[in-house]
């Protein structure tokens, strides 16, 4: 089986925290531990008047890509519940091919 990862299109991450809490519930993590955590950058205004405001979810070492779920052909719970539908799970190689399609994406090898 080839290596898996998470591709996150942070152009669309709204910072809703569903991935974080779904992960905590799935893995029984306490409130101060995370398998994935959303980092907010901004808001602040840029010289051209536009706004810097990104949310970037980052998986931690406690992420096992929901091995128990994917073994049953279920999506990782973060991907399942992502309200902005901006997370993808799959083969690293195929995910990497998607990186070139639009800016503001990040790929995690897990």
């Amino acid at each position, binding site marked *: 089986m080839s290596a898996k990862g998470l591709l996150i299109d942070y152009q669309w991450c709204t910072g809703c925290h*569903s991935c974080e809490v779904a992960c905590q519930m799935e893995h029984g993590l306490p409130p101060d531990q995370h398998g994935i955590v959303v980092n907010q950058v901004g808001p602040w205004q840029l010289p051209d008047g536009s706004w810097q405001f990104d949310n970037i979810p980052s998986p931690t070492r406690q992420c096992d890509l929901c091995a128990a779920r994917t073994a049953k052909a279920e999506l990782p719970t973060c991907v399942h519940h992502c309200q902005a539908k901006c997370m993808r799970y799959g083969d690293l190689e195929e995910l990497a091919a998607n990186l070139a399609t639009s800016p503001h994406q990040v790929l995690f090898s897990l």
Partner: protein
Amino acid sequence: MAEHIEQHDFDSVTTNDDMKSNSYKSGQDALNFEANGKSFGLVEHAHPWRYEQDGLTVTRGSAWSGPGCHDGCGVLMYSDADGHLVKVEGDPENPYNQGRLCVRCIAVPEAITNPSRLRYPMKRERADRGKDKWQRISWDEAYDLIYQNFQRFKEESGAESVLFCQGTGRDIAQYITRLMYSFGSPHYVLNISGMSCYAPRVTACFATTGSFWLGDYSQEFADRYDNPEWHRPERIVVWGNNPLVSNSDGLYGHWVVDCMRLGSELIVVDPKCTWLASRARQFLQIRPGTDGALALGMINVIIAEDLWDHDFVDKWCYGFDELKEAVSAYTPEAVAEITWLEADEIVQAARDLAQAESAILQWGVAIDMTKETIPASQALLALFEITGNIEKPGAMIAPPTLLYYGGGWGGEWLPEGQDQKRCGYDKYPLVGQAFIMSQTDEMISQLETDQPYRLRGAWIETTNFLACTSPDPERELAAYNNLEFIACVDLFMTPTIMALGDVVLPALMYPERDGLRVGDGAQRGETINKAIETETEGRSDMQICLELGRRFNPEAWPWNDVQEMFDDILKPSGFDFKSMREVAPAYIPFEYHKHEKGMLRLDGKPGFNTPTGRLELWSSFLSNLGLNPLPEFFEPSPGPKSTPELFKDYPLILTTGARPWGYFHSEHRQFPHLRALHPEPVMEMNQHTADKYGVSDGEWAWVENDRGKCKRIVKVNQGVMDGVVSADHAWWHPEGSPDNLYDLWDLAVGNLLAFDPGKAGFGCTYKSTLCRVRPLEKEDN
């Protein structure tokens, strides 16, 4: 559908996305259910409503609610052999949320097992109100106490001496109104100044157009974004709300993001740069409380530049010339002065809206909470009427109705003449006669003065108004304390119950009981399905109302159990509870251009359900009530321009109630994983404002004005307009002491507000008043 996920080839890239066809097979024949001559749209279910999977029992249902919001997402509730709720997941088959879920429902298992839940009925001596001196009692004793007290009040003083209060709109509303009407009371009470949540916009819409209007995000169709009749809105004007978090009017907020990914572009009007604002085509950073002026200015530009929809206005609108006259003074320059925007921003927004093929007005409580909210709502609505954004795909649509219970279920049981005893019936006819509720501000005065008659009791069902909606909790507490007997129903002990309750009944959470999910925004037929037995002595709100209603008026409550009651409610739809549970969600047949087809008027003629048959830019209804038939702008008061002397002492504008992820008003602070997202109340301001007034990011500070003060942690947010403070609402510390009402007096932002409605009895100052901030001093700690 579910097999979409189960059959997925996991060697390929998978997502919960497939934007255009999430969970739905394109081209598949639509499923439907014939009932009473209507053909309901359905989705294909891979499983029955309850099934076994990997040693767990899965119950499909709707999450409406307590604890939770007013959306009603499709959920899958997983329980184990011991009957414990193991987890809650979003249901990928449900077109509403499409498998997604917000943190509040994801964390519901820790609500069910929360040690601080109310577990059995309790009573307390009236003299001990505010003290933790509760005594456990049986349901029979609790019902006896409530029956005996309310019945005595009714016999001695009339049924109008008892108030019936609810909080936010959830599935409990219709049972409360039936309990109230069948008891004989006309007092349907929201405990929010100027009824300023949802009600003003609904009322302004009905008064001027005969309908309510929702943005069309394809929510009327079971196949959603795939439906061939639907087109994505070209423009979404997000006006004074943050729908991703607040999900108002039956909207699942992230539909806005779905539409953005399909090409919709946004105009965002807000004092704060929200995430949506950062992604908008245009972000109008507006002074709080001046939205009405902006709308009038945009209408001015659209008329001056001849960008209005001539054909639509000629055929379907009434009073265009009068509207033109009413906006003539609102030039871009004049409006820039009022709103603190640039004139060219206003012109650009007007052109951008008018030239869009279709546009949605995504509005929210910031408009309801404008003091003169009715004329402001008229202005916003007129903008979308003269641009023809009515009853067409991707614009504003009149939502179809599965069951109609406007004004509350059971209205026929209210004895004749009782309606005129509503608080504010004569003073504010738009509230008391048109919206048929008791007007909150008038009710408070009546509690204080016993005029025109004495109020003696209250039924307070799942509302924590002292911590949440009260604009002056000290005054409201004193007013309510004049009541001789107060019965409360809730999930948790709250500051409101600790302060006021004489009897408290424990309610159940949605995984523990059955119910109907029909109303709020776009109706659809869904059931709330019990997944587990409760471990408390709690009973559902529906059962409580049925059992008490039966005591007061058995004829009005003829059902043996709640399921018989649900069957009777559903009868006009052609479903009963069990048949709906099996197929839900059921989508009501929907068509666009209903006004052209005679589908909006009671007489079946083309047009709108108004006296003129048109969308009334000049309103006959409001004119007949002595109100201005045209939209109009009033300076927010208190405010920098309306109260300049006060502004010298309190030089910042305070806006309250921005929604944080994880909380729904005063709920959810007890759940550890949600509390961790937002541990304490904050007030946001930019760095310049923080520096100017000597407060620091992350530190506690006071926000105060001439009326009072409360504590907040300062959060520097460069997205907040300079000179504006945005403070959390609805805070209390469930972990705190009951003796000081769980820190209510330190934390209530209502301390700075007032019962101060607009002319029509609607509207308030929650979103725009004045304040200053200062660091906590040593003795304050």
